[in-house]
């Protein structure tokens, strides 16, 4: 076929396009589609070079198509994307002209970065990433010098505009009317962050510098972080002057920036504290580029009011000065780490701990409240700490916790910064006699966190389960060091009281819930499926709206308040589990007692059992449909088991049916004293709504004595040691005894059922 033809074809295409310009979009679509197919299916490098060599492709790219036509737009952008997938160090020169400093593929595409059609926007993003990926120094220089500033500042500006829309949506929707819209706006923000992160992860130093600069100066600090300073509950007197100063400073900054109008808008429009905490959490959960996140974390954790009032630029100068000071004094390490993103292992080696430290020693070493990590004069930190107050509700607390958690777990935030604030600090003290390790942690934060835990364990239930879980997650990180907790005695006492409160809260529901035991087991199973994923939590727009109780909103149970008595019981059960688990973790223990019906310890169907010393009662099981089978009945502490003799081993039996005692209904037979009617239900935790019995049959014993024995065993098999606890309640006539065994704080409930007759 030859290349000659193809060459002619491209110029031929161009001619058609130009002749018919303004005319048929239909023809353009056909041409673009054909080109698309052509380029996509080229496997041979040489033919590709040949196709590209005449600059016809660039002429097609810059051709003024009718982009108002949906179809033309879609085919055009797909064509550009296809081309971008063909980019590499060799082909780049066909698109980027070094001499004329021209790169139409890129510059034409980015014109559509904010196109209303989402698929077009995605194509543009894919294209830009494909371009940045090509390792061509001069092309990247072109991108940086000619397009990075306007492109990035446009992105940044649109993100800012976008989150103000989001903020308005949150402010105006106390009634959860626009959940869809909000979900979209949140997802869109995540898209932006992931896109920025994808660019950053390509590790192009020059580009990252420009991007980081734009993000910090024009978006993250002025809009996200400064919005935190608006909520100052205590210091009303200073609010006005501070905000005025701020506005003044920002307005002055405005004049020296490229996009004055845009900057001006941001300065005037802050977003609510809720939105700001939420978005910052997302930033810290997604991006871990040290020059970006470390600065942000530093500003949030360390900057004081005087710095803040001087504006963004001064704030960043303060940060740099601090870094210089630190590196000068601190063997220049932190600065190195910052710029190279290198490992911090050398640093960690400095604080090697001597092992075998006893608890008492540890106790002695833990410092008592230390005020250097209070919030005095740290406006942003103060806002976060104030947001942790759950006295009225946990609306803001959830976001404050997310942000703290996200910062503490971000790999780009250097350990020195969060040590003692969000992580425990460990330091060596060399005394004359020996070396000691000193552990310390952020007392004032832990205090606030414990307050949330205590509140969660009390009846009004204003704290959502998700908030409690996150609180406890953070607590563990704050006070666990070298596998031990370093809590002070006072804080340990708080945790213990939280534990007893949660037990007391739970006790309220033994009585009211008929299926308490099943719920208890079910919730445990459900919770063991996985712990909270904070990144997923912060993708959920539903938490942005004020906490609600009604399930009609479609919000997850853990992310709302309980509705009705059953849900309150479920909540109490979960609070109990969460606190219990935390106490175990703090003590370095593992759960050995839950779930109550451990599948490993309970008998399973087809399991062979050694019955040589067991009480066996022979019986015939007669089903309703007329079938009957000969079986032996075994009743242990928890279960009723029907066995048939094991053919292989003398004295052994094989379990053919098992049921938990609490799932069994027994009635005597009016006419035959040798018979019992037994219904065994499936455990509630295994099934959903319909409770089909596992077995419903007549049990015929050899004589009435054995029948009575079986009756007795079904009602009074409880070993005495389990009956030590108080009998909690009697339900209807059935006399269900729930007994509690308080050894080690473990609760064991055992349901006993006596026969009605």
């Amino acid at each position, binding site marked *: 076929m030859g290349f000659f033809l193809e060459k002619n074809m491209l110029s031929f295409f161009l001619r058609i396009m130009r002749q018919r310009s303004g005319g048929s979009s*239909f023809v353009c*679509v*056909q041409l673009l*589609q054909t080109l*698309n*197919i052509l380029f*996509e*299916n080229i496997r041979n490098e040489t033919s590709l070079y040949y196709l590209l060599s005449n600059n016809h492709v660039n002429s097609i790219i810059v051709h003024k198509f009718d982009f108002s036509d949906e*179809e033309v737009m*879609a*085919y055009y952008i*797909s064509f550009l*994307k*296809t081309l*971008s*997938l063909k980019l590499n160090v060799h082909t780049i020169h066909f698109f980027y002209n070094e001499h004329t400093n021209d790169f139409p593929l890129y510059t034409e595409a980015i014109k559509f970065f904010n196109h209303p059609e*989402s*698929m077009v*926007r*995605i*194509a543009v*993003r*894919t294209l830009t*990433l*494909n371009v940045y*990926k090509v390792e061509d120094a001069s092309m990247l220089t072109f991108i940086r010098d000619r397009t990075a500033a306007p492109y990035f500042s446009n992105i940044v500006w649109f993100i800012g505009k976008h989150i103000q829309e989001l903020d308005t949506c949150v402010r105006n929707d106390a009634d959860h009317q626009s959940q*869809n*819209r909000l979900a*979209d706006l949140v*997802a*869109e923000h*995540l*898209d932006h962050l*992931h*896109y920025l*992160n*994808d660019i950053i992860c390509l590790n192009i130093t020059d580009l990252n510098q420009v991007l980081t600069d734009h993000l910090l100066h024009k978006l993250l600090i002025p809009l996200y972080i400064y919005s935190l300073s608006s909520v100052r509950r205590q210091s009303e007197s200073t609010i006005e002057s501070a905000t005025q100063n701020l506005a003044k400073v920002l307005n002055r900054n405005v004049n020296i920036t490229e996009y004055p109008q845009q900057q001006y808008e941001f300065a005037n429009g802050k977003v609510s504290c809720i939105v700001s905490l939420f978005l910052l959490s997302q930033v810290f959960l997604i991006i871990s580029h040290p020059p970006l996140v470390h600065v942000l974390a530093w500003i949030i954790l360390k900057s004081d009011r005087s710095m803040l009032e001087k504006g963004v630029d001064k704030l960043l100068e303060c940060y740099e000065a601090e870094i210089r000071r630190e590196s000068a004094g601190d063997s220049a390490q932190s600065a190195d780490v910052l710029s190279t993103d290198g490992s911090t292992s050398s640093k960690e080696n400095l604080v090697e701990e001597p092992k075998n430290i006893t608890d008492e020693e540890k106790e002695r070493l833990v410092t008592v409240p230390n005020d250097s990590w209070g919030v005095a004069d740290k406006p942003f930190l103060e806002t976060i700490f104030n947001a942790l107050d759950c006295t009225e509700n946990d609306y803001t607390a959830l976001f404050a916790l997310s942000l703290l958690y996200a910062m503490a777990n971000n790999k780009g935030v250097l350990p020195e910064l969060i040590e003692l604030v969000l992580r425990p600090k460990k330091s060596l003290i060399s005394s004359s006699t020996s070396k000691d390790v000193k552990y310390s942690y952020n007392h004032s934060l832990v205090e606030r966190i414990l307050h949330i835990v205590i509140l969660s364990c009390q009846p009004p239930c204003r704290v959502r389960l998700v908030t409690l879980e996150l609180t406890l997650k953070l607590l563990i990180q704050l006070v666990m060091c070298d596998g031990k907790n370093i809590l002070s005695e006072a804080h340990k006492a708080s945790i213990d009281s939280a534990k007893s409160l949660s037990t007391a809260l739970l006790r309220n529901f033994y009585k009211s819930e008929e299926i308490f035991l099943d719920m208890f087991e079910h919730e445990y199973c459900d919770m063991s499926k996985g712990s909270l994923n904070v990144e997923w939590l912060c993708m959920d727009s539903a938490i942005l709206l004020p906490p609600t109780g009604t399930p009609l909103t479609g919000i997850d149970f853990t992310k709302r308040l309980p509705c009705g008595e059953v849900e309150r019981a479920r909540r109490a059960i979960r609070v109990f589990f969460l606190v219990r688990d935390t106490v175990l973790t703090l003590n370095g223990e593992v759960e050995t007692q839950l779930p109550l019906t451990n599948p490993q310890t309970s008998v399973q169907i087809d399991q062979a059992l050694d019955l040589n010393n067991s009480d066996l009662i022979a019986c015939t099981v007669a089903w309703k449909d007329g079938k009957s089978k000969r079986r032996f009945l075994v009743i242990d502490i928890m279960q009723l088991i029907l066995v048939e003799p094991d053919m292989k081993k003398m004295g052994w039996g094989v379990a053919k049916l098992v049921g938990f005692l609490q799932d069994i209904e027994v009635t005597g037979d009016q006419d035959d004293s040798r018979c019992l009617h037994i219904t065994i239900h499936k455990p509630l935790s295994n099934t959903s709504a319909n409770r089909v019995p596992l077995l419903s049959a007549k049990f015929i014993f050899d004589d009435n004595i054995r029948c009575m024995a079986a009756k007795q065993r079904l009602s009074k098999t409880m070993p005495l040691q389990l009956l030590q606890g108080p009998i909690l309640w009697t339900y209807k006539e059935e006399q269900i005894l729930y007994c509690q065994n308080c050894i080690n704080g473990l609760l064991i409930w055992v349901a006993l059922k006596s026969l009605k007759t």
Partner: protein
Amino acid sequence: MSYAYLFKYIIIGDTGVGKSCLLLQFTDKRFQPVHDLTIGVEFGARMITIDGKQIKLQIWDTAGQEAFRSITRSYYRGAAGALLVYDITRRETFNHLTTWLDDARQHSNSNMVIMLIGNKSDLESRREVKKEEGEAFAREHGLVFMETSAKTAANVEEAFINTAKEIYEKIQEGVFDINNEANGIKIGPQHSPTNPSLPGAAGQGGSQGGGCC
């Protein structure tokens, strides 16, 4: 050309399973390969008719998304339907379905209709994945299943159209918020929801570029 609704689709699955060939087969039968030569396309659109309504299907290929998380997320989120494709002659493409599905479920809106496609059904002699296995996977994960051949065009039409029907039903049930374009559904430019019957709705279900060339 006016339409009542526009549905955006994506096609996902391992490389080489024939995603772009399926797309080309559906949108433009004209390009049907005569030889064994496989050619594909990354974007296509076609008009179909469901329930007497003109519906435009826009299929966006997700090529190049693998390397970038932001792109994956956005694609899933912007689509109303997804064809999840594996190659019946390559077992590993079937084994990777769970990963694809997890990704899709994590990023997409919960209403997205996913259809499982076992492609290359014409290569019966080289089959490595039984039809029953595909069916079982689909049943287990609540997907619609079909075996297709982009080469012979068997079932290709049905795969795209059945997916559209399911989306259409969801719209009728009010599950999809059609005013929200982020769901991958757009209401046609001239279409008002109160006027269900469009002029010329019947008999235009064919390839839209049919008259050209």
